[in-house]
């Protein structure tokens, strides 16, 4: 029985270490995932937090400054618009009407400062990846 006890203890240590590792990483990596209208409902709570906001790129809202590599647009959902600034080149498929996820923070200037743009593929292009 000595052997099995050893393995039990070893297993418990591994398990605790893994859960601790998960817990540590989870806290710093998690972000809320809301739509534009949900965001404005919870704005006091989510202000300045790292979040992901989903919406549709508003028609005629895209302003691309090629020299400064600055992309400005508004994201809409539930009848509400949110202005977004992103420093960097636009990803493929970025155009008015596309479903977009923006990751970043809502600043004190009432503009969402995006650090990452993730395009969600409209269902028409269901075959974007075929694993």
């Amino acid at each position, binding site marked *: 029985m000595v052997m099995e006890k050893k393995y039990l203890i070893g297993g418990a240590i591994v398990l605790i270490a893994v859960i601790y590792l998960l817990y540590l990483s989870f806290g710093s990596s998690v972000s809320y995932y809301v739509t534009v209208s949900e965001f404005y409902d919870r704005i006091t709570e989510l202000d300045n937090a790292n979040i992901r906001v989903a919406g549709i790129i508003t028609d005629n809202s895209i302003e691309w400054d090629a020299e400064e590599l600055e992309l400005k647009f508004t994201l809409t959902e539930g009848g509400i618009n949110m202005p977004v600034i992103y420093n960097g*080149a636009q990803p493929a498929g970025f155009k008015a009407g596309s479903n977009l996820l923006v990751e970043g923070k809502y600043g004190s200037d009432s503009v969402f400062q995006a650090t990452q743009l993730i395009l969600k593929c409209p269902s028409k292009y269901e075959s*974007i990846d075929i694993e």
Partner: protein
Amino acid sequence: MIEAGRIALIIALPVAVFSVLSSVIGARAAYGRLYKSARYGVIIVFGLYTLALALLLYAFFTHDFSVRIVAEHASRDLPPLYTLSALYADKAGSMFLWGWLISLFSALLVLRTQEENRRVISYAIAILAVIEAFYIALVTFLADIFARQPSPAVDGFGLNPLLQNFGMIIHPPLLYLGFAGFAVVFALVIAAVITRRSEMWRDSLIRRWSLVAWGTLGVGNLVGMWWSYNELGWGGYWAWDPVENAGLMPWLLGTAFLHSMTMGRQRHYLKAWSLSLIVFTFVFTLFSPFITHGGIESPLHGFYGSPFPPFILAAIIVVIAGSYVLLYLRRRDLKDEERPPSLLSREGSFLLTNIILVVLVFVIFAGTVLPRVVEVLGGGKIALDRGFFDRTCGPIMLLLVLLMGVCPLLGWGKMAWNSARRNIIFFFLAVVVVSAAILISGVGNWYIAVVVLCGLPLFVVFREWCRGTMARHRSKRENFVRGFLSLIGGNRARYGGFLAHIGIVLIALGIIVSSFYGIEKAATLDIGESMSAGKYKLTYNELVFKQDNVKVSAVASMTVSENGKAAGTMRPSYAYWFNYNDFFAEVAVRTTTAEDLFVSLVWTGFDPADRSATFRLLVNPLIVWIWVGGAFFIIGGALSFSFEEKRLSGGKE
């Protein structure tokens, strides 16, 4: 024509069910004829399924746009090879191909075995036929693969430009080959447990099927990374997206299973553990389509509106429940005959590898499903960024690399402290001390220590080869090349494993170094302007517009200079695809053994008067070693595969 395909597939379903019943009954000695007809059944299912596949492909290549799947994914101007891959760009089409591969493998299993191990094979056939029937039911009743368009189209919608890449022609079939291969291994192992023949696990039949499944799945994942790197334009190859994790998890579990089996060849333990490993490897091959078909939302890509996930989930529950009921019923047979090993032995390090791999899968699984679980439990929608995976999986993977270095130094059984081993332990300690010193002194960053650690397994394998070759040179007077080759040939399973380890270490090095030493630049240039990154300077010379039936593209021409010396021209392009009403970039990559120079054209106004364009420039060191590692992988797997253990196979009942 296409109706005949549907009929063939619908007939195949009862034949598969018949094979299940007749092979279960035929497993008994008195029903030899039923066993025979079950075997014919499997081959007939394969024939019918192949007929259905051929008719579907015929529809694709004759541009029969009255068929939904053809109209949605192919078009007249699509090149033939991409027309082939359009089949599995469809959600039903991908399951259809997968099911066909399982029917192919089942037929191969039948044809490659005769009367030997009859009881095991008959149960394996039964399990595989159940799986086949499941797939056939999915693609005929749940989503009709042969469905017609409401009104025939003149031309098809065409294939997504991102999928028009060589990698995407072979990536999905390789994954499905791996998945189907693991279905065969699962069936064989379960059959061996049912028939109380656990010694079968050590048979080369199971070992070889496992190697095929493991190798194709591993290479399939790598090809997916290669595609992502060369086609998606973001310059990375792995984003810890749920659909990527979906392909990685079964491979990691399969790797654990291979190792537990290797250990089982030498010793008789951990039977229940190995059984669990193959059960969950198979479960994760099912979990993969569950994710890609929308069971877990992937922000990036996947199939939308697929009807399959609830049924796949049900299948997963059935497989887990069934396997553990069986495990309970056979608990006496699965009792280990020997004690678990001491950790300071080769068995111990195999066991540790197993545990670490399982922990790794657990962490990836947790990260993949937690957001969904939180949402279902009413905690609102949350997302995990890739930092979560980097921070948790990175250290665990390094531990694995470390173990690869230590394992060959340890002997089977309790370890003897002879002087040779002690030397190696000293070397190992030196590596740890050097790494620790780098870390503590702050001379370099922690990833330098990591690179040093990666050197250990390479050193150990190299040393082993040198010693073996030298020994042969001395004792048999063989020259070094011959000595080396016969050394490898003498124990192909072992040295195949070593080669695969070298592959893994190269991949690890490529990933670590490119992640931490990469350079990224972006700028908008006018004709004649240039930008630089590291030792490279790129001058933007011209932008040419080209138009064909499907797209209008802007092709930039940039001359590259490396340390001031001319080093060729690169041509990234950016195109507007009419059907998709969207822009897609085609990157240009210049590869050397030291680093990749990666340029993508991310924006231009398509204005002949103003040809300014925005470029993204990346310098990714050691990337090519990730793909070279893949080659080691294939060679190692093939070498190991070519090794057949004669003494254990065969055996009539």
